[in-house]
């Protein structure tokens, strides 16, 4: 689904895609929906818990909450009275898990379990990944790196090195390659010509494009 900005509406929409995927015998498709910790305060999150867990009408929905313990400037404790967001799933009889989201191996294993459950049981699963907040939110603490937080990539790189799976220079080369690629993209976007102003009216309707009131 396209990404959008009103926080948590994805959870309301996810029940629709999951319902569509429930149809047909042997259906395998599932919906994965993701959001932050603070956003779960919106009613849409409760909507998805309620709708996805109705007995006999369960939805193949994997709900993932990435918990970095902040919403812009507001700390977790200022928003939630429960220890873990995933605890809320328990009231709806869905399996839940809390994992170290900074650990790619743990995350992979947990996702495999959760995906398997949702695919085969055709029921919801709530996974909470505890993650770092490597940079602040632009409109609060600024976007500078936060030193106290665990850098998941650095930590994983060290692990790869210790286990002789990759060398420092291989990893540096990879990083340089992608940094250059992103730098190029950023440059290209800045020097690209501006779009035609009239094109702001493109894609308003799926059949015929027209400007307000035109026939």
């Amino acid at each position: 689904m396209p990404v959008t900005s009103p926080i948590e509406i994805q959870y309301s929409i996810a029940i629709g895609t999951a319902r569509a995927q429930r149809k047909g015998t042997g259906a395998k498709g599932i919906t994965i929906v993701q959001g932050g910790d603070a956003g779960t305060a919106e009613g849409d999150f409760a909507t998805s818990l309620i709708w996805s867990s109705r007995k006999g009408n369960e939805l193949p929905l994997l709900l993932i909450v990435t918990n970095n313990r902040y919403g812009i400037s507001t700390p977790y404790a200022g928003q939630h009275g429960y220890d873990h967001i995933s605890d809320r799933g328990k009231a709806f009889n869905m399996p839940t898990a809390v994992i170290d989201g900074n650990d790619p191996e743990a995350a992979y294993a947990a996702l495999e379990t959760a995906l398997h459950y949702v695919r085969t049981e055709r029921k919801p699963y709530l996974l909470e990944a505890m993650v770092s907040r490597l940079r602040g939110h632009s409109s609060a603490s600024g976007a500078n790196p936060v030193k106290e937080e665990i850098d998941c990539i650095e930590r994983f790189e060290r692990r790869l090195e210790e286990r002789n799976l990759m060398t420092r220079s291989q990893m540096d080369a990879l990083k340089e390659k992608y940094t250059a690629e992103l730098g190029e993209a950023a440059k290209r976007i800045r020097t690209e010509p501006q779009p035609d102003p009239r094109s702001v009216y493109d894609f308003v309707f799926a059949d015929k494009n027209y400007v307000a009131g035109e026939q």
Partner: protein
Amino acid sequence: MATMIQAIRLALHVGESRHGVTDIFGEDVGPPLGGVFTGTQGLKTAWNTPLDERGIVGMAIGLALAGQKPVAEIQFCDYAFNTIDLLKVAGNTYWSSGGDWNVPMVLMTPVGAGIRGSIYHSHSFDATATRVPGWKIVMPSTPLDAYGLMLSAIADPNPVMFLMPKALLRLKSKPGEEIPGEPGDDRKLSQMIDAPLGDRSQWRPDWPAVEDYFIPIGQAKVVREGSQVTVLTYGRNVQMSVAAAEELAADGIDVEIIDLRSLHPYDWDAIKASVQKTNRVLCVNEDTEITNFGEHLIRRITEELFYELHAPPKLLAGGHLPGIGLADALEMASVPQKDTIRAAIAELASHEP
């Protein structure tokens, strides 16, 4: 000279110290941040809510019904659309309870384009807000007006929506438009009331002794006098219209600009007097053009002043688009700009019946 956001903060400070404001709240409104636009830094009754707009509006209605005086914030009006049934309740409670229960609350929210905020940080709310009866709706275009309108909103016994034109929040007031009692020196004011960067846990503001100053809700302001065309506008488009008018003055076109400041109730007397003088009228705002508040003004002008008009009244508003484009060229094409305002005025001025 205070900026508009500082003026709002000063008014909220006066509100909580002298006019009974009990709670100022919203997402990231309390310490340490004090609002994503800094509007609530250092206020003693400011607190953070969960990320839940319906909860915020419901909280405000409940507090108001229980005798408190809340000022609630929706971080961006773009996220207020799921609160509309609660806004309707705030607006209808006094009426439906036969005058038993009024809802004295203020809801403030940043609106409009101008910061390249794209689809979800650029919405306007004036067309939607004016569709909800029972609310008073104000929108300042200068820091002093923001100060005076906020104090009036706080003192009002009804729900009042305070629309903050986000592109103007960091704008400083012009000489002669100081808030009574503010220190003349910007740097000094900033040192007194702006939270420092970094650790703020020990910081306390040093509020200047600003005085009460109320701008009555419902009173427009003639920001530029002229004789040939009337422009009815508010918020961010006021300055653009003034700039367009200054350019047109060189071509001998004399434009009158009215900053409505209050959208509901609006100042019909000021509108009528101006249209009777110029006989030509342009409404300018950023909301989408279909079912736009300017259309209401034009309808009333047409009904009541038809025989005084020398040209069909005109509306220049945002395109009927699902959002505001992100690229510069697309944002500019989505909402009125100085040049499109100038062209619309020029066209009206040269129109002959």
